[in-house]
């Protein structure tokens, strides 16, 4: 039961406060056992997956809609799952050191573990809807984590920005997934993967592809949606290392890779992905070197990497897809390590500005070594794993079909800019003369060094012995993306060829760039006004106009006057029902109704109650006469042998009257404020809706469009649901999901009432000075 194992993480997250009480500062280690155990399980599945098997763990969810909670472990999802669980383990341990003694550590743990589960669900999900649910969950948990320091305005703003951009894309994604499901006639990725030929020829191909890509691009920070990612660096560094470099931002990449066999390879796919990817790659690398904040530097270089991955998927040749999986693994390893190093530097020196650090090598030798290893991998220097990835990337760019020269130029520029970034991050803080930092630096604790050290050593190990990664997992992953078996054979030495020469030239250029970095930055500062007009300004303008429009419509539609709300609702009702009734059905009135004497009596009581409520001058009498109508309706229910409805109506009516009486005394004096003309208008509106509803009921009496479902319910109530009371069986069995939704709505309404009244009371008591309390006591 893989679902249980993975989803139990949500339960674990819920119990985090309890664990904190038991384990105190060591909670991080306890929680880290969860991803560690899952990682072991995934490792255990590796041999099977490497031999080309696809493991399916199925559970029916809503079989009538074809929705199932099926988890699929194939090469691609296994690669992602391993990254999520392994890096997750280290990040949890690291966070224990980084946020040591933070008062809100519990909240952090809850959100981080919940994120981990959501992300695992996302990559393992086979159903389109399941993927979407987990996709949105990662957006929500990411929002909570970016805004972790919620007292900070900047953090709140960044969190909101990330949420809006990814949710906006999420909406498009939902539309895209629905179209995809309809076009393919299946809601399972596994099945869609085999019907690529049908999907690529489908009429809906273009719109569904654009919608899906909008979702993927916003999530994975592709140009022009890249701006939210650097702002997300307001999150604590463990979050940046985990969500915003190694895992969540790769969700979009994952989706595109998953869809490659079903949708990939068309002119549109190749064009959009390779060009947008290449532009993103260059934008990220170019914007990175403008910054001196180490986290921003790394964030922009993450954008560069995400662009590279998208571009490789766009190129889509066998070589490009092999490069894709290799680059994906390499990037997660070194970027996770580098972010954690950045966190160590920030934690130990008290600054994030690389120009303010220097000569830390002697004080933090281990950190320096780890940083250098990881940065060498980022730069793509031999013999690290990043070098292999970059070689493969250059190779596939050279064999790209469409837009080859544009992509090649952008890829080469991005490569040497990235090398400069790597040098800045790894050399600047550790070499040169010692500079005074806000805090006196010393080596980080073991818990914080463990994660980056392991990841950096893995980068080196996989580079030296590429067989470890190449033959097994990466082959399986690349085969899934390709849709047919491929063989990945990685080697450090390919002989002297064009990619190697490009690598060496870019290394040299990058180093020169690093040496002249201060001057380059000063030059680039002149571009600031231009960059300020970038996509982020578009986002700001959009948000501004949304506020303006919602302000306007609130003033018009929600002005706080009950009478206006009622008027708007009733008029809408008249327009919609009237339109449909008069145009689609000619109101056929059946007068051959069988009316009994006692029914006439009850109905006349109701009419009198309504009339009296409308003309009375006392509010209490109005409430009572409305109550009479309610009780009469209950009587009608009972007369027509619906005792449950009758009882419910009676009880609701009683409680309504009680609630009304409770608030009655709080209302202002009962006065008639409307002019005679307004009263005529109100009478007209009320009369129209009354006539219309009567017509509707009489017409509905004669219309019989469907076979009513009640027959089925009555027949199966006892044999299937073991109950003779059909109303109750409908509530708790046939339609239990609806009822579940309703009790949640009820709870929300109660919370709303409490919040409104209690907050008002709190506000009232706020300006009152403390003496009042003591006087009361």
């Amino acid at each position, binding site marked *: 039961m893989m679902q249980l194992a993975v989803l139990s993480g949500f339960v674990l997250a819920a119990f985090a406060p309890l664990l904190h009480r038991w384990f105190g500062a060591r909670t991080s280690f306890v929680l880290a056992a969860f991803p560690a155990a899952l990682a072991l399980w995934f490792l255990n599945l590796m041999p099977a997956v490497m031999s080309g098997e696809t493991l399916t763990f199925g559970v029916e969810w809503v079989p009538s809609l074809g929705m199932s909670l099926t988890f699929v472990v194939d090469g691609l999802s296994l690669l992602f799952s391993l990254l999520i669980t392994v890096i997750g383990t280290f990040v949890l341990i690291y966070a224990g050191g980084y946020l040591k003694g933070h008062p809100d550590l519990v909240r952090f743990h809850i959100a981080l573990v919940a994120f981990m589960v959501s992300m695992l669900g996302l990559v393992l999900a086979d159903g389109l809807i399941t993927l979407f649910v987990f996709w949105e969950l990662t957006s929500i948990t990411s929002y909570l984590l970016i805004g972790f320091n919620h007292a900070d305005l900047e953090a709140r703003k960044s969190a909101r920005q990330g949420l809006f951009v990814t949710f906006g894309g999420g909406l498009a994604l939902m539309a895209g997934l629905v179209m995809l499901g309809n076009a393919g006639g299946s809601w399972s990725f596994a099945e869609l993967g085999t019907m690529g030929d049908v999907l690529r020829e489908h009429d809906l191909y273009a719109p569904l592809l654009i919608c899906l890509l909008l979702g993927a691009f916003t999530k994975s920070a592709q140009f022009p949606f890249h701006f939210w990612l650097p702002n997300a660096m307001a999150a604590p560094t463990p979050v940046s290392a985990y969500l915003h470099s190694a895992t969540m931002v790769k969700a979009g990449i994952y989706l595109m890779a998953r869809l490659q066999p079903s949708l990939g390879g068309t002119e549109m796919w190749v064009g959009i992905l390779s060009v947008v990817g290449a532009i993103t790659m260059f934008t990220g690398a170019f914007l990175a070197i403008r910054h001196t904040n180490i986290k921003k530097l790394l964030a922009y270089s993450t954008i560069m990497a995400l662009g590279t991955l998208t571009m490789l998927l766009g190129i889509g040749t066998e070589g490009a897809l092999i490069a894709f999986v290799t680059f994906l693994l390499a990037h997660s390893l070194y970027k996770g390590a580098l972010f954690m190093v950045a966190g160590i530097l920030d934690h130990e020196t008290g600054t994030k500005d690389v120009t303010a650090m220097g000569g830390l090598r002697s004080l933090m030798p281990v950190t320096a070594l780890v940083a250098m290893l990881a940065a060498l991998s980022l730069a793509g220097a031999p013999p690290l794993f990043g070098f292999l990835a970059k070689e493969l990337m250059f190779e596939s760019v050279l064999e790209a079909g469409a837009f080859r020269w544009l992509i090649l130029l952008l890829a080469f520029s991005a490569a040497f800019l990235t090398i400069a970034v790597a040098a800045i991050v790894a050399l600047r803080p550790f070499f040169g003369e010692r500079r005074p930092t806000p805090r006196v630096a010393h080596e980080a604790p073991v818990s914080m060094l463990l994660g980056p050290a392991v990841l950096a050593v893995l980068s080196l190990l996989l580079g030296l012995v590429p067989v470890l990664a190449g033959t097994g997992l990466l082959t399986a992953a690349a085969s899934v993306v390709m849709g047919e078996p491929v063989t990945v054979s990685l080697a450090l030495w390919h002989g002297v060829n064009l990619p190697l020469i490009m690598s060496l030239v870019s290394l040299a250029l990058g180093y020169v760039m690093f040496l002249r970095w201060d001057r380059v930055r000063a030059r680039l500062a002149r571009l600031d006004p231009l960059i300020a007009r970038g996509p982020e300004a578009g986002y700001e303008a959009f948000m501004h106009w949304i506020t303006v429009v919602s302000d306007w419509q609130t003033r018009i539609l929600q002005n706080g006057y009950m009478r206006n709300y009622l008027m708007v609702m009733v008029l809408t009702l008249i327009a919609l029902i009237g339109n449909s009734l008069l145009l689609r059905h000619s109101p056929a009135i059946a007068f051959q109704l069988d009316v009994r004497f006692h029914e006439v009596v009850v109905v006349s009581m109701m009419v009198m109650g309504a009339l009296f409520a409308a003309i009375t001058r006392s509010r209490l009498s109005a409430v009572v006469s409305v109550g009479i109508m309610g009780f009469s309706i209950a009587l009608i229910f009972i007369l027509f042998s619906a005792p449950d409805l009758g009882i419910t109506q009676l009880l609701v009516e009683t409680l309504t009257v009680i609630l009304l009486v409770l608030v009655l005394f709080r209302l202002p004096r009962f006065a008639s404020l409307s002019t005679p003309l307004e009263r005529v208008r109100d009478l007209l509106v009320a009369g129209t809706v009354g006539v219309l509803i009567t017509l509707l009921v009489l017409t509905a009496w004669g219309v019989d469009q469907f076979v009513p479902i009640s027959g089925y319910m009555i027949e199966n109530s006892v044999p299937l649901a073991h109950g003779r*009371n059909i109303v109750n069986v409908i509530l708790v069995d046939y339609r239990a999901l609806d009822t579940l939704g309703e009790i949640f709505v009820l709870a929300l309404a109660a919370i709303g009432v409490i919040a409104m009244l209690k907050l008002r009371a709190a506000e009232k008591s706020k300006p009152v000075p403390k003496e009042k309390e003591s006087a009361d006591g």
Partner: protein
Amino acid sequence: MVKSGTLILHTAARILMPLQLLFSVFLLLRGHDEPGGGFIAGLVAAGAFTLYLFAFGVSATREVLRMVDPRDLVGMGLLLGMISVFPAWFMDQPFLTAQWWEIPGIDFKASSPLIFDVGVYLAVLGSVLAMVMTLMEVDKDEP
């Protein structure tokens, strides 16, 4: 605002409340076969406490409720509702499929719909009580 303290109301509330509560449980349990059910029973129980509220005021009612905050009742109700979703899962059936368990000895069928109905009962009772009590408390705070 609500004056507590008339003799008839006091006496009636004292006697009626336990009866009403008992009746609500009766309605809840028979609901599957005869008129009744969690929603109606929850409303009856809420009515019982509301009567007590009118007779004795908020703080006395809180004492009757002991440690239980109506808001917790809402949470409990939602939790039970969610829990009743899962038994079917363990039987390899779609979520929310009703499960029936015979309890030997007594003639009573335990089932996941019953758990669900109890959840509805608590959620309704808690929501209504929370609203009424908050409204009355705010009144008390004001001059």
